[in-house]
């Protein structure tokens, strides 16, 4: 295709400035196809392969980073592919060509905004219930005690005003070391702002529920975040203590606790890595 290259050079030379560079139509089509292939790869086979890999349990930080790159690059390549496809299809209408890309961008951002509003509202309601039903922990700051026999521990992330909630059932059941493990785990979620990651991937899934990039990513990211929090706890207690705490809370068989949710590969990985 030397003819094409020369014509590009001519166009550049004739215009006299880079801003007026006319990109040949064939290049636009090729670029649109390339971006489309990248977008499809990032939306489908890549997330599937990553979710089947075994290394993320050994390097959760790296895996989490990779999921963010896949999510971000996936979104950008979809937008890029749409924009280029628009220019390839309607080269005479520079105002109409970018419309699909713009609409898709607006669609993604709208889902992000809706997710943020929804989650914020749910957190607000939850916090109001907490204020009404729980009492502050006598010694621990930003920790509240819920009068309930079911052993639960969780945090409600709100940036610097995050709240950790421990049920009375949990406090009765765990010894001091196990409680340290639970609190270190929850504090890691708060300090490392895992809520923002989960929010972003939740928005992704609500926007593209039919793509593995979104559904798999959300499940994987949720499990990887638990591994990171576990690692934080393992710096303060022995693996055995953390394992005991997990068993006490997760396998308690207390009526009212939900059905086992583990069993998926990555959740099982979380426990397998403790067992070495």
């Amino acid at each position: 295709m030397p003819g094409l290259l020369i014509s590009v050079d001519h166009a550049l030379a004739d215009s006299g400035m880079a801003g007026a560079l006319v990109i040949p139509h064939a290049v636009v089509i090729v670029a649109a196809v390339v971006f489309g292939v990248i977008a499809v790869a990032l939306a489908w086979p890549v997330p599937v392969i990553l979710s089947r890999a075994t290394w993320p349990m050994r390097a959760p930080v790296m895996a989490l980073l990779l999921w963010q790159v896949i999510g971000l690059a996936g979104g950008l390549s979809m937008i890029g592919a749409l924009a280029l496809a628009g220019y390839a299809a309607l080269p005479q209408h520079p105002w109409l060509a970018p419309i699909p890309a713009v609409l898709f961008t607006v669609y993604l951002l709208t889902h992000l905004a809706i997710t943020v509003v929804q989650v914020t509202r749910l957190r607000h309601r939850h916090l109001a219930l907490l204020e009404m039903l729980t009492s502050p922990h006598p010694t621990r700051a930003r920790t509240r005690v819920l009068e309930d026999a079911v052993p639960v521990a969780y945090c409600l992330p709100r940036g610097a005003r995050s709240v950790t909630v421990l049920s009375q059932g949990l406090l009765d059941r765990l010894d001091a070391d196990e409680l340290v493990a639970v609190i270190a785990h929850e504090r890691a979620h708060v300090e490392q702002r895992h809520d923002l990651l989960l929010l972003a991937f939740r928005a992704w899934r609500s926007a593209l529920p039919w793509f593995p990039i979104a559904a798999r990513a959300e499940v994987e990211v949720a499990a990887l975040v638990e591994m990171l929090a576990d690692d934080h706890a393992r710096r303060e207690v022995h693996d055995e203590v953390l394992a005991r705490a997990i068993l006490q809370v997760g396998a308690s068989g207390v009526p009212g606790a939900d059905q086992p949710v583990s069993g998926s590969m990555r959740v099982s990985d979380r426990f397998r890595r403790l067992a070495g």
Partner: protein
Amino acid sequence: MSTLGELERAVMDALWDADGSLSAYDVQHTLEAEGRTLAATTLLTVLSRLEKKGFVASDRSSRPHRYTAVASRADHVAELMHSVLGDAGDRTAVLERFVGGVSAEDAAVLRRLLGGAG
């Protein structure tokens, strides 16, 4: 000095313990009996905040206005526990739990670790 959250809890407890509706004056009395003296304006602020949150309903046709708890304490605890233990999709975005249910195989993996450690 009690925080606003503590006052809200005390007021809700008074309404939950009451049979039927209470006037602001009744609530003030109940709290006083617990050793908590509250200015009327403060109490009205707390009541209107609770109403805005949807925890308290007021009957403004009567003088003085009468207040009732919208739902029982047990109902609210059930709502709270549902959002903690319930539907995974909503929950993971709102709050981060230490651990959910652990399947039998995963529990076995953990017990093996504990057994090995003696």
